């Protein structure tokens, strides 16, 4: 509404030029901001950390851009929590650097940019949910009426509005986790660092948390999630770093990792009526296959592309399919392939 008015007024009132230019500028900057979605928010560069004789982190490097969810996947004791503590400025690295938009994590300017949610929610049980949020808001340097509104807004987002004035002591585990997440968001940080955000949650609440994380991502936040849940990393992350025994052993998008390290997908087909020449049809697909009576198993590296093709070939040869099942590789398989162990 405002822009057209100012545009109309330019010829007559000269001083409106400035407002006009300001508006143009702000529009321009927001375009630039949206355009450069791959701003590097967090850069971890060859970080080492020892506790006594034990080397917990070995030459760990990672990057989190704005508007992406990065999963840090690894078994318990892989060094995930230590890495997150170093990023949050709770611990200092022995070697290497962490940069949060160019600031050292110990710098209070960096601390304002990050929201750290430790694995233990870090709540004060004798305060209400509201008071807990107010406490951490004040630690962020926020106070006054605007904070109260922000708390109300956030308690709505994590659906704790009805319980916000109850003592945290009486909260369930899932409610505590959600409140912890809301506290992490209180100062609207640009980087979210979440340590096992859904551990011990029932599936419904987990979905809810995933939805919140997804929304924050859409708002251009950079999010780093440490998890040992394969499906969580798979469902949420744009990119995944797989960490084992303090070392990053693989990275990339879940799809990339699966196609690079995972086994091929298996397409299992059962027939009502086999096509006229099954062997010929299967040879035409150009894929590895095994025939086991009425059941055929075909190995495919890209089942999304291959399934329609195979179905078309079978139909073309006059076959009728009773059932078709695709077993795709998971990140679990990737981890198994990389380390020779299961993650849990």
């Amino acid at each position: 509404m405002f822009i057209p008015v100012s545009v109309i007024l330019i010829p007559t009132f000269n001083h409106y030029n400035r407002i006009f230019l300001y508006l143009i500028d702000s529009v321009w900057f927001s375009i630039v901001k949206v355009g450069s979605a791959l701003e590097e928010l967090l850069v971890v560069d060859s970080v080492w950390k020892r506790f006594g004789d034990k080397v917990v982190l070995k030459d760990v490097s990672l990057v989190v851009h704005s508007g992406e969810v990065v999963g840090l996947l690894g078994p318990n004791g892989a060094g995930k929590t230590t890495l997150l503590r170093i990023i949050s400025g709770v611990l200092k690295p022995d070697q290497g650097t962490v940069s949060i938009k160019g600031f050292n994590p110990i710098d209070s300017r960096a601390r304002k940019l990050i929201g750290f949610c430790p694995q233990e929610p870090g709540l004060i049980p004798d305060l209400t949910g509201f008071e807990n949020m107010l406490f951490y808001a004040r630690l962020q340097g926020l106070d006054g009426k605007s904070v109260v509104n922000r708390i109300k807004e956030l308690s709505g987002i994590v659906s704790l509005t009805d319980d916000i004035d109850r003592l945290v002591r009486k909260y369930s585990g899932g409610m505590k986790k959600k409140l912890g997440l809301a506290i992490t968001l209180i100062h609207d940080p640009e980087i979210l660092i979440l340590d096992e955000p859904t551990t011990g949650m029932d599936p419904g609440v987990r979905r809810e948390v995933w939805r919140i994380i997804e929304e924050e991502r859409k708002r251009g936040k950079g999010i780093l999630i440490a998890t040992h849940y394969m499906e969580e990393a798979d469902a949420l992350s744009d990119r995944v770093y797989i960490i084992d025994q303090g070392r990053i052993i693989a990275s990339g998008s879940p799809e990339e990792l699966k196609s690079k390290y995972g086994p091929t997908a298996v397409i299992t087909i059962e027939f009502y009526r086999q096509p006229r020449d099954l062997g010929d049809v299967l040879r035409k697909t150009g894929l590895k296959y095994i025939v086991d009576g009425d059941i055929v198993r075909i190995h495919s590296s890209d089942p999304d592309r291959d399934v329609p093709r195979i179905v078309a070939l079978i139909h073309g040869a006059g076959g009728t399919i009773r059932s078709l099942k695709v077993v795709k590789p998971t990140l679990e398989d990737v981890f198994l392939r990389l380390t020779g162990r299961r993650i849990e």
Partner: protein
Amino acid sequence: MKWCRIKAFIVSGIKTTFREKSAVFWIFIWPIILTLMVAYVFIPPSAGQPVTLDLGVVNLDHSESPFNGTIFIDVLKEIEYNGTKLFNVKIYDNETKLVDDLRKGRLDAGIVIPNGFGENITYAQAKLVVYVSGNSIYSIQINRAIMSEFLHFFSINVGLKKIEMTMKYMNMSYVPANMTTQASWGNKSFIEFLEEYFKGLVLPVNSTIIEETPEALSNRPSIVGWYVLGALGMMMLYSGFLVGAAAVVEEKERGSLERILSTPASEIDMLIGKTVSGLIVLTLSSIAIIVTGVFAAGARITWNPF
């Protein structure tokens, strides 16, 4: 350092303290109990009070004279020092029982009044057997001093009384002729002179003893006062533990320390905030202690900073 962050620690510290139901007990009730215990249990009721001796008396006197053993016992029962009875008198049938109780520590002192005590005190020199005992060499010394001072005082008063009686019975006309103009009598009569002279025999030196009590006298209210200040010190010590060590351990356990450390709040903010909230709670406890001490236990607290 920012006020907003310090305020966060102060407010949350005080709120969590009072949310805990036992807090009211530890902050108000326990200090009051402690103070009352100090005043009525740790300090025995006799502390700082004048001594009362447990005195056993065996009266073997059957004299018919105006002053006898029975009247002497009444004197023992009545005698006071600074408003407190000096003796708690217990009558015994015979000396054996008295000595037995002295040995068992049930008595501080014992007096055996022999037969003829009344007649002797009137017409001659009376005799008494006095036992002195006590729980320690120190208390035996004190008990002995008290007994001997009392008997000395009693003896002198009896002596002066006897002089008075003697003067009443003395023939007023009996004055030796060659003694009427002695210069040393001054303008007194011979009788007056004689009375003064006898008094001098009984009590050659009449000294006046004045008790001057020091400001920091260790009487009961002062002792309670010192203990009340001690209770304050104890509260400070323990709340120091609570605020300092326990609070940080607790934060560590529930993971809030990690979260706090990841915020822009500094350790100084946390230290100041927690100390101030601890001090506020401590002040409330101190008020409870002082009010109870002064108004319920009767403590006398002297403020003397120099």
